């Protein structure tokens, strides 16, 4: 029993760009929400988390893609998780060695990348059916989309909640920080607001496309 049948697709620019907008893991597919909410109280944490997740995503999905013909179908999920856990352990030790401050700030959430459903989801839905090249490009795109989402939350929360960006104070001394924004409820509120914006833009696009179709029909 070998893996799932291949449905090879051509590598285009769209393979990469899809992850940024149409299949954005956070804003559109609502995957991997826990780190999105938990570590975005400052922009630098958000960036580090995004990069770490991107590395694990690309590395583990490449391995899954390479081994897709050897992994028996029945135990594939367990295999994927073990592969992901291996890379997460690597990242965990690497961050600990590079910056202990960052490691303490992110806390358990580095190890919790293992259970980020985005990574397992991509392994199951994409990497297990695609050749290595497409998987890497798509993984980079999804990772970039994830990092972008984390950053957009992190910047808003840091600016409003502590009046700084990447640790640099933006406002004068008299700035009264909106503390709730760096606390847990702020994460929910900011993410809700971003989802609202995304849904609103999406709806407008849909309406415009419908109008164009109607116009084409008329002419």
């Amino acid at each position: 029993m070998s893996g799932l049948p291949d449905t090879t697709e051509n590598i285009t620019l769209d393979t990469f760009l899809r992850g940024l907008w149409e299949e954005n893991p956070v804003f559109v597919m609502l995957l991997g929400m826990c780190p999105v909410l938990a570590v975005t109280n400052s922009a630098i944490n958000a960036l580090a988390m995004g990069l770490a997740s991107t590395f694990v995503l690309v590395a583990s999905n490449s391995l899954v893609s390479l081994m897709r013909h050897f992994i028996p179908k029945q135990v594939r999920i367990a295999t994927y998780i073990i592969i992901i856990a291996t890379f997460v352990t690597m990242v965990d030790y690497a961050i600990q060695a590079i910056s202990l401050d960052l490691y303490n700030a992110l806390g358990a959430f580095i190890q919790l990348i293992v259970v980020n459903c985005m990574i397992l989801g991509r392994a199951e839905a994409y990497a297990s059916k695609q050749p290595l090249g497409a998987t890497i490009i798509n993984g980079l795109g999804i990772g970039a989309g994830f990092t972008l989402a984390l950053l957009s939350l992190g910047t808003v929360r840091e600016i409003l909640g502590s009046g700084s960006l990447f640790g640099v104070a933006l406002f004068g001394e008299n700035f009264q920080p909106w503390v709730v924004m760096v606390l847990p409820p702020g994460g929910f509120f900011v993410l809700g607001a971003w989802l609202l914006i995304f849904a609103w833009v999406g709806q407008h696009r849909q309406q415009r496309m419908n109008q164009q179709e109607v116009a084409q029909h008329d002419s």
Partner: protein
Amino acid sequence: MTADSVGYIFMNAAIVNNFVLAMFLGICPFLGVSAKRDTAWSMGLAVIFVMLVSSICAYGINWMLTRFEIEYLRLICYIAVIASAVQLVEMTMKKYSPALFRALGIFLPLITTNCAILGVALFQTSREYSFTQSVAFSLGAGVGFTIALMLMAGLRQHLELAKVPSVSQGAAMTMMLAGLLSLAFMGFAGLGASHG
């Protein structure tokens, strides 16, 4: 109550540092299974059970790994234990309650990737809890998860009758609701020492 008594750890995990609303663990099932109150209830029970089993196993595994000085395998071992515990729950539920099994659907196997469960195992290791403390911690975390899920399900059932703009329907509205709940739970923060 002192900071390492069993009751304190239980309350701390269930209410003060609620896993979902204060520590953002287990958000996916929190958003996915909170549409109806009865599915939320059975999901909560399943999570409590898996948490308890995996916490006990994680305690044993950690003891063994430390003895052989191979702590770097911790993460891989924990996730394997959790995956098998979930499998166990799935088989039991399929046999004794097929209706419930269908209602939970895809979210049952997804308990494996519920970060709350791995979170319990990792936190109890990093805080060096004893065996009874670990059990209290995992039970508290499970109860806290169930409380959050039930509250959210109740709110969302009422929301069905409310008129909201079409843009904010679905995920955005749910996030706002979760934010309000989280704000309410912040009121408990003064009750105990925060673990961040």
